[in-house]
């Protein structure tokens, strides 16, 4: 299993898109998540959300919901990925990301 620490990407996760500012959700997805999924597979990834200053919902939606929009992962793989999320500091983040994945799956189907 490969663990990705979001705090290694940025202590201050930023906005939704790259053009809005640094450390965006889009940047995290394209630079960190997608290469890791391609290398290790969605089922072998643990994403640790702890250690940052916080997350805007746009960042989370773009980073994780965007995986489904870009068809990088299937809805099943996305739910495995969410199952491997670690957020001890704020467990509600996992539910929130699960909701975004579910919304995106509904929209995509």
């Amino acid at each position, binding site marked *: 299993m490969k663990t990705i620490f979001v705090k290694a990407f940025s202590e*201050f*996760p930023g906005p939704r898109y790259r053009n809005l*500012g640094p450390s965006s959700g889009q940047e995290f997805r394209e630079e960190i998540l997608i290469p890791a999924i391609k290398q290790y597979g969605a089922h072998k990834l643990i994403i640790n959300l702890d250690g940052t*200053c916080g997350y805007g919902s*746009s960042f989370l939606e773009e980073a994780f919901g965007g995986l489904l929009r870009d068809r990088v992962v299937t809805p099943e793989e996305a739910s495995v990925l969410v199952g491997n999320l670690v957020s001890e500091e704020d467990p509600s983040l996992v539910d929130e990301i699960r909701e*975004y994945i579910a*919304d995106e799956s509904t*929209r995509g189907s």
Partner: protein
Amino acid sequence: MKKNKIRKELKLSIDGKRHWRSIRKSVLSGNITRRAHRKKRQQLRGCQWHAEVKAPPKISLYDPRNHEKTVEFLRDLRAKVSRNAKVRICFRDTRQITAAGGLLFIAELDRLVTAYPNVKFSCIRPPVQHDSKYGNESFVTESVLNQIGFFKLIGLQEKNLPSYPNVSCWRHSQGSVAEGAIAGQLLNHVNEQLSSHDKKRLYRGAIEAISNCVDHAYPSLRPDGLGINDRRWWMFVGIMMGKLVVCVCDLGVGIPATVPKKHPKDRIKALLEWLNLKGTSDSELIHVSTYLSKSRTEQKHRGKGGKDIRELLQYYQGARLTIFSNKGCFRDWNSDKPTAGEPIPMAMIDEQKKSIQGTIIEWTVPLEELSA
């Protein structure tokens, strides 16, 4: 001829002439001095002439009277800075500067200083106040100006003033992109006692508000006739009267202008009907915007930020959210808050006479709830 032998009449006549000569001389010399002084004064006035902008007694947006005066002051400032080489800002009557009013003022001034770098500023400092109990001197207003960086901005020397704990914790910053590090560091700096949970909640609201500024606030130039293309946002964090205050400000077109362009008409109409509003005023459109969770029909995944901006109210009973945008003002607070007296409505809208030509989002959270 000896002196004592002069006839008395002749002596009187000579004395009289001498007396009148001395009077004439003194008058004449006085005239010359006065004329010279007047000339000098006029010359000085000619080279030191400046347009004066008088700040109101309270730079504040919280009540209608101060709101109007503050907006007028800022409009006057824009007009004078854009048309004159020298501007003097007079704080002779200013006794109070509040968070939202102060941030709007510094944002306006920052924008003008950047757009007109050759304008020279001077200032008449706020009066020294005396506290009502012991009559001690208080430099709070000037200290606020120091803290919000007013003097640095216009290139004047800051005075060494006593430190006021309620003022020295104020921090502000600005940016043109949604940089989380700026917001995060401001929150880290203002109160080291903030728990990790509190910081995360405040950060969430702030980063979404800043993203909204960058994404939506500047679709076109600000309609103030100056033609300045400045797409920055400003943020303030401080403690005032036992409350943590976080403000995010932009000088864009305002929420009432962006709502009809960014959202489908039928959705806005449905919300207006649901809220029993007509949608004719800015404050009503701000109220509607807080319920518009989706940005556009074709981009349903977007528009999560509005939720984050209101979310803070769910966690803290005494928290308040205030949104000023153009002429509108929208206030919201935790609906579960127990009230001793009359029931407080969940949200309140308040239309003002004049437009701030921009948007300020302000959260206040009681410190005792943050440290709990």
